[in-house]
């Protein structure tokens, strides 16, 4: 357990040691907040003050939370992981007496939570200044651990997705696609309630809504314990998938060589 904890801390330290990178990311986040706040303000207004039960304050908090949860991760990492698996660079990590994917994910999680915290501060300040307290009330507090879980699910899924590098060989732009899936099916761009029924039903059967929609919903509309269970469930599933992908990659390396 100790190894994973130190990986986590190392990851967090890595993020803190690159304040320039962090600033750029947060600046990017702020721009998106500005854009979406303008967009939804106009949209909600044009719809009589509420869309599917989301008032503007709810919508703004929703966007801040959903976007914050997503911006904490670096899907470009998929490209790096894919490359390392494919080129056999991961062999070095296999020499350590810990699970390769577990170790990596611990480190990535450390980094991501630092980013999440930074985004959280900016997001809360931005939203509060514009519309006051989150409509979710006390339930909004659950959004904090929920966002952390959402980030973990995201990371695990990215590691699993990186396995695509095996077959694609040139997975350079594939992270781009992964990102778009989260944007849409994860509810980052639009709360799932705004989807046509068939689409929102589909989205609920996929892991992506656990990454953005669920934590954002807590902030916008209050706690719902059932959703936390869903998130945890997806965390288990995606972690297992990531583990399987990495094991298969390691086995392949052992057979084929670096």
């Amino acid at each position, binding site marked *: 357990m100790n190894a994973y904890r130190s990986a986590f801390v190392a990851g967090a330290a890595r993020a803190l040691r690159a304040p320039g990178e962090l600033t750029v990311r947060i*600046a990017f986040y702020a*721009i998106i907040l500005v*854009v979406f706040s303008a967009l939804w303000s106009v*949209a909600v207004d*044009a719809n009589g003050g509420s869309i599917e039960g989301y008032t503007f304050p709810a919508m703004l908090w929703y966007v801040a939370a959903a976007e914050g949860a997503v911006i904490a991760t670096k899907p470009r990492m998929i490209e790096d992981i894919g490359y390392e698996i494919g080129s056999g660079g991961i062999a070095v990590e296999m020499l350590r007496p810990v699970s390769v994917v577990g170790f990596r994910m611990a480190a990535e999680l450390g980094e991501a939570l630092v980013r999440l915290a930074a985004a959280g501060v900016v997001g809360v300040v931005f939203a509060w200044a514009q519309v006051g307290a989150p409509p979710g009330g006390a339930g909004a507090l659950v959004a904090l651990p929920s966002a952390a879980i959402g980030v973990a699910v995201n990371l695990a899924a990215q590691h699993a997705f990186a396995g695509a590098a095996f077959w694609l060989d040139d997975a350079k*732009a594939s992270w781009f696609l992964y990102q778009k899936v989260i944007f*849409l099916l994860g509810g980052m761009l639009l709360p799932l309630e705004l989807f046509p029924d068939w689409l929102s039903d589909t989205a609920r059967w996929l892991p992506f809504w656990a990454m953005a929609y669920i934590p954002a919903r807590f902030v916008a509309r209050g706690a719902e314990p059932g959703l936390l269970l869903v998130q945890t469930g997806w965390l288990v599933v995606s972690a297992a998938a990531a583990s399987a992908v990495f094991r298969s990659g390691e086995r392949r390396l052992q057979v084929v060589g670096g």
Partner: protein
Amino acid sequence: MSVLWATFRTALVEAWANRRSFWIQVSIMLANDVAWVIFWLLFFGRVGAIRGWDASRVLLLFAILTTIAGIAMGLLANARKIGELVGDGQIDAALALPVRPLPYLLVRRIDTALLGDLFFGPVLFVLAGAPTWERTLVYVAASLCGAAVLVGFLVFMGALTLFIGGRGEQADLGFQAILILASYPLDVFGGVTKVLLYTAVPAAFVTGLPTELVDDFEPATAAGLVAAAAFFVALGGAAFSLGLRRYSSGAVWTRA
């Protein structure tokens, strides 16, 4: 001039050389673009028209955006990499040749993935832009101007590296900012932001004005767009030239 054309042709040949990679990247880009179209359709499907913008108008904007991206980031892929090229000392290779460094660098590389956008944009325009001969002409001309604004802006941001050092981080941020802001209807933005979009982050000239011109051509607006294009191209070129002089006086220590 013929040297630039020869370099550009070579870049095209290179982009096409690895066939498998080409198709994979283009396909992924197309899928990405389709995802955005889906978003807009869902959005307007539920929200309805806002401030004179509906699905078809936004898709027109998106068609223009992708066309411009295809040109400025696909065909002239180094436009947004100027900061990095300076920071890594890679412009030295261009300085060692009897060519004008900036134009050479700009045509030196083509980003295959963005060629997907270059294909998608016109197709989307044909499907959703209600193309007539007049509208198509305006679309092409306005896209070229918008691309010029974007290239000029990106080169300017990257050229700052010649003055302040680093590897172009400020250019990356500027690039992300202008791309995001250019992706959304201009009219949703309030006063202060809107001013920004006409000046520091000229997204208004990238997609705002072109979209307006296609729907409602006004000579004054068109002149404004052309002027903006000329301005930003000149700005980028001047920043790069001045920066080069500073670079060769070695005032900024680069990694190389």
